[in-house]
């Protein structure tokens, strides 16, 4: 495999994801450019979350390669390496926000955000607290640092999960369905947060979503997966796809038509 170009953060080639004999996506490839907001979209069950879980190393791909480029910290690392040697190094440089937030329910918000700092750095305790509070202030939750996750609303939990994912200043942030289950206003606020973090931190975002308003508001590039073809059906700027794609699947998705509606 050739080295990815400098402005590419993640390079995926010939990736096949399968659970045992059941193939979910077959032979897909895409590049995520550094600093962009990259959205993986598609209908339910098309394999969006599966691809995400392979990207973040929760599952090993059936075949294909996933390469991360960290030019200032040691070059290209391969998530799919057989010996798993690069996995740890990659995991330290990426952050993940899970769909439900996945905050630890027995810890306060501050403790949740502080946990990666405790585990991976030798900062003194007061410094960890201060940095954790800074991260919480980034998502507007500095006044809730002593609260337990169960005392917060769903949107606040997701924001806190983003703060935790950012604890170690990752270069790539993965967000699994950030706007799922949120009201339009909270969801728009979260989109705004993602955009501003992307602009000011220069972090690369990989987002799994099927919420159209959110996709149009944040995405620089999208790829659309499809269940039937088990692959990518469209790739590019979401607004262009909506306006000019002649692929019926893409039109269906963006124009919110029910499956089979074009038959009538």
């Amino acid at each position, binding site marked *: 495999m050739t080295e990815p170009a400098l402005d590419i953060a993640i390079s995926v080639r010939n990736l096949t994801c399968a659970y045992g004999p059941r193939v979910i996506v077959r032979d897909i490839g895409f590049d995520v450019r550094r600093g962009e907001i990259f959205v993986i979209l598609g209908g339910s069950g098309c394999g969006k979350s599966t691809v995400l879980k392979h990207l973040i190393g929760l599952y090993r791909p059936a075949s294909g390669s996933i390469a991360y480029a960290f030019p*200032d*910290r*040691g070059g290209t690392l391969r998530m799919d390496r057989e010996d798993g040697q690069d996995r740890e190094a990659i995991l330290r440089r990426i952050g993940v926000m899970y769909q439900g937030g996945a905050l630890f*329910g*027995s810890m*306060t918000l*501050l403790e949740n955000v502080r946990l990666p*700092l405790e585990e*991976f*750095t*030798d*900062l*003194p305790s007061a*410094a960890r*607290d*201060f*940095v954790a*509070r*800074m*991260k919480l*202030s*980034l998502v507007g939750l*500095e*006044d809730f*640092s*002593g*609260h*337990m*996750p*169960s*005392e917060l609303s769903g949107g606040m939990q997701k924001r806190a999960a983003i703060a935790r994912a*950012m*604890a*170690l*200043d990752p270069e790539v942030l993965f967000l699994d369905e950030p706007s799922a289950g949120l009201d339009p206003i909270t969801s728009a606020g979260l989109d705004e947060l993602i955009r501003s973090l992307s*602009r*000011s*931190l220069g972090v690369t975002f990989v987002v799994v979503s099927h919420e159209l308003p959110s996709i149009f508001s944040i995405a620089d590039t999208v790829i659309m997966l499809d269940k039937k073809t088990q692959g990518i059906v469209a790739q590019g700027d979401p607004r262009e796809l909506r306006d000019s794609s002649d692929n019926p699947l893409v039109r269906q998705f963006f124009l919110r038509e029910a499956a089979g509606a074009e038959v009538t």
Partner: protein
Amino acid sequence: MDKTAALRIDYSPLAPDGLVLSFAGRLDVYGLGRSWDEVLARAGAREVRRLVADLSAVQGLDGAGIGLLLKLRLDKEAQGGGMELRGLPERYRRLVDLYNPDRLKSAPAGAWGETSWVARVGLAGLALGRDLRQMVAFVGECTLALCFAARHPRRVRWKDTLLTCERAGAESLPIVLLIGFLMGLIMAFQSAMSLERFGAQIFVPNMLGLVMFRELGGLVTAILLAGRSGSAFAAEIGTMKVNEEVNALLTMGLDPVRFLVAPKVLAAAAMMPIMVLFFNFASLVGGAVVMLSLEFPMATYTSRVFTNLDMTDFLGGLFKALIFSLLVAGVGCLRGLQTGTGAGAVGQSTTSAVVSGIILIAVTDGVFAVSFYYLGI
């Protein structure tokens, strides 16, 4: 990580009352651990009024690095001094502006304030009172649910009940038999060794029968039930509580006590006497092994085991066991329903189910001992 980018910090005084901190290399979360406290201590000295942070040689800056700069500024401003950033590379300017120091000034407020130990003792007392009241209320609810089951037997969830019978009863048979056998063996052996001095080994079977049937059979089986099934009930209902399944039942208009608790309590009560019978039988086998090895004939053993035992002892033992099973299953379910939020809460209610179960068994057994004595049973 390459060594050239390691963090270096130089301190140089700035006349008349200032200090210049020159940072070089990577000012990041991995490099700051060793220097954070030192930087804060040197820069925080009272005589330093003016602080200059020179960042022109910095090759990397992340949240922790900005954290240090913010902390230095906040501390110095709190002392009445000031800080100036010098040579901040343009690409980090936006990153630094992202964080608002004013938001970080105040110390974080916890959701709850600190409480003194006097208040905590009071709160613990209140919690105990609340718990007792809930237990009494729960006994009432259980009784209602069981009465409802007796009046409408077709509306009892028999499938769940049978499943619980299998899990709590049939599947516990191996451990009940094993513990029963070992208890009988140990009791018989220890007492035989003690009674040997008086030549009274012949009375070991009498004692064993009485002790097992009147007392230990029910007690030990109930403790096994508490450890094996009371905890399982608490964990199952507790997980349902955490996942809001209990709330779903409530909003469907289904009473969780009738729906979840009654089948478990019924199953435990139905299985308990059978488990006690198996336990007692296994303990007699254990005793027989000891007596046979001491060369007493089997006929002597079997004829003496029941001489001091009459039907009231046997039935009394079973009755006690039945009550124990109701208590253990009930308190297991109650702890499950009292589960708070989060995964840790399930663990707490499981522990609490076993502990409260055993306490209730011990206390009730004492009550039974006294009342049986006065009733002449």
